[in-house]
């Protein structure tokens, strides 16, 4: 099951909100500090706007054919540069934004499956921002879940139907014969 947990997920962000765990959705989340949540909303909104053009590869400064070690190295360098703790105090906001973007870029590009999806999108000319894709994934996953449920419910009813006629006279498998024997013995008793 695809889960929304990436590397070093920012706590309190909507990473949690988009987790497909149904129990999470049902419980009233009395423990969420709203202040942090609002903060992250603002940042996300900003990111959503500003991020339309640069692709993840540009952000990390590597070519589209970059290998995983290259991606890792680029990420580490940029993360060290833009981390809020080490950013110059007058440019915290800007640096933090970039840090978050670099983070997302690395998360997507380092997971081979997500990278494949991202490359596909890029080829089509769509640069889906990370959180946008997350939302999309979440909807997909919700739909997946209900598809799954429908599917196995169908399968269960089919199983029940089959089991009615399973041990009919014609079935000569070893198991069927043993089951018939057992039934007869219990009837005799």
């Amino acid at each position: 099951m695809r889960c929304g947990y990436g590397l070093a997920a920012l706590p309190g962000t909507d990473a949690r909100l988009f987790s497909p765990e149904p129990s999470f959705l049902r419980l009233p989340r009395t423990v969420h500090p709203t202040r942090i949540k609002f903060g992250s909303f603002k940042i996300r909104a900003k990111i959503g706007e500003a991020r339309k053009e640069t692709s993840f590869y540009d952000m990390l400064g590597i070519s589209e054919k970059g290998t995983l070690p290259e991606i890792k190295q680029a990420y580490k360098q940029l993360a060290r540069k833009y981390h809020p703790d080490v950013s110059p105090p007058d440019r915290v906001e800007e640096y933090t934004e970039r840090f978050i973007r670099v983070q997302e870029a690395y998360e997507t590009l380092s997971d081979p499956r997500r990278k494949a999806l991202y490359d596909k999108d890029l080829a089509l000319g769509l640069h889906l921002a990370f959180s946008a894709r997350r939302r999309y994934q979440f909807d997909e996953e919700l739909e997946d879940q209900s598809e799954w449920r429908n599917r196995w419910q169908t399968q269960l009813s089919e199983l029940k139907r089959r089991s009615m006629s399973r041990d009919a006279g014609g079935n000569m498998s070893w198991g069927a014969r043993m089951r018939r024997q057992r039934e007869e013995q219990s009837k005799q008793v």
Partner: protein
Amino acid sequence: MALCACSFPAIVSCCAAASEPQKSTPFASHLLGGSDLGFHPLLKLNQVKKRSGGVYASLSEGAEYYSSRPPTPLLDTINYPIHMKNLSVKELKQLADELRSDVIFNVSKTGGHLGSSLGVVELTVALHYVFNAPRDKILWDVGHQSYPHKILTGRRDKMHTMRQTNGLAGFTKRAESEYDCFGTGHSSTTISAGLGMAVGRDLKGERNNVVAVIGDGAMTAGQAYEAMNNAGYLDSDMIVILNDNKQVSLPTANLDGPIPPVGALSSALSRLQSNRPLRELREVAKGVTKQIGGPMHELAAKVDEYARGMISGSGSTLFEELGLYYIGPVDGHNIDDLVSILKEVKTTKTTGPVLIHVVTEKGRGYPYAERADDKYHGVVKFDPATGKQFKGSSVTQSYTTYFAEALIAEAEADKNIVAIHAAMGGGTGLNLFLRRFPERCFDVGIAEQHAVTFAAGLACEGLKPFCAIYSSFMQRAYDQVVHDVDLQKLPVRFAMDRAGLVGADGPTHCGAFDVTFMACLPNMVVMAPSDEAELFHMVATAAAIDDRPSCFRYPRGNGIGVQLPPGNKGVPLEIGKGRVLIEGERVALLGYGSAVQSCLAAASLLESHGLKLTVVDARFCKPLDHSLIRELAKSHEVLITVEEGSIGGFGSHVAQFLALDGLLDGKVKWRPVVLPDRYIDHGSPADQLAEAGLTPSHIAATVFNVLGQKREALGIMSSRN
């Protein structure tokens, strides 16, 4: 978010209080008002770090999990599965959460397999809730995910002894509890065993259920298909649960990151999961059957079947063809779904074999495990709050690492060298080789038999294959070694790691028999290094042997600290020649492999008693160094062979030679020191050696005994600590 509006005052007051994560327990219970909501591990403890500037990121600071064990009120009431029967589904969810935190805290104190156990918490709870163990048989393949199962079946109070001497075994073990119906440790055995139990039940006329839980990794082994094929044919009622966490290879990552699963099977399984049937198509099919209706049941059933075939993933037909009824995929972390499905299947009579495809996430519920590349598959003791493992530091590296480095050095020089392993890239060190030579390292999945014959095929084409398979897992591939490699004299090199006793994993992973079963083969060269430098030389020797198969064994653990050859490149040894380490008189210790170090220690013990022993490193078990052994037999009174292997190995070959050469007709006394004729239980390496009688003190005592100095022998044994 409306969710949080009502809790504003609570948050504000607790923000300040909760800045130290250690206070989490009162904090959480204060907010949640009692325990009915349970302790949701998603509770983040660093949410309240305040920082001016409004934005923070948590990279390495701040704990993401509890640092002390949270209370587990519901789990405390469950000692056996029968205590679970009256719980509601909501309570089951709370139980699952508590069970999860219990597993994490137990493993943090003892080390062990964490990721796999976390992935099956909900499944374990659902299984024990629906089924009635021990009458219903629940089998866990490999067994490393059985920690929640053990907690729920009466062994919670012993979890702190997991994998330790005289403690719980790390895998399921029949002798430990009646709830462990089958001993596991190697993979892919549960469907076979489960079928056997199902057939036995049928023959006895009983009615219990048999459930075999097997992972997608274990599904890559042939035995699983052999079993499913037979199960489909026999049509006996049983349930196979395929626990699919998309980690088809161990340890689920190479050095550079998460690894996409190996093999074609995994893509079939993914297709199963992601297949999105066209709803309209199903509706159409349904509509058609509705219209037909009436007495046309047969036709309707056929159409139903077609519709199912159309909408179900193309992978399910694989199981269907084998004769198992496929249900799934199912969310493995949703207790509701699991319980309803299992109940349905349980109450359906005459199902035949059923396969339930359950999708889980390895390491679920522990943020550090979920994010780690290897999903915390096997860990040493760690700190639950930060996820940091307490890895001991050592001056030397493990033999596994040395082997990988030696092989890389050989492969640099010779481009024909390739490496093969069976889903053990981390365990055999070949992940290092993979990073350096991605095109020359082959991971075949959990399929040792195929790995050996595959290597044989490579050798036919003139390549130089190195098969790195644990000594214990080589047992699976024995016929392939004999028939496909040795009989045809193909130059395949076998690198057998984990030879001898292996510590916490216990007898299931113990490499006791490899000397015996390799040295009896006519064409095989059998050697063993006594330290890491020798290992480098033996890798070079094996690379140089190009006309016959060869093998070498090395133990688990770190090197002793000798100087390594320059550039990691060993020098091929002269085949069939040993080396004398200490020249002495009267008594000679002829050691093989890591036992040589124990011999050296025994010799220094005896020096204080005035005995100067000869210590020899045999290096080769096949071909034996005949001239050296003749020399030793002629010039000494006592010859003791020492090895960490079972009877029938090095010592037996030496005895055979001595007898045939007439050397036993003289005055020399030969004694063997081998592993005893019983399985040594798991424990610390030192405890295991003591239990097996292979410590330096034991060897020294043996020397005294043979010399007739029984009092000194007793003295040595009683003075060891």
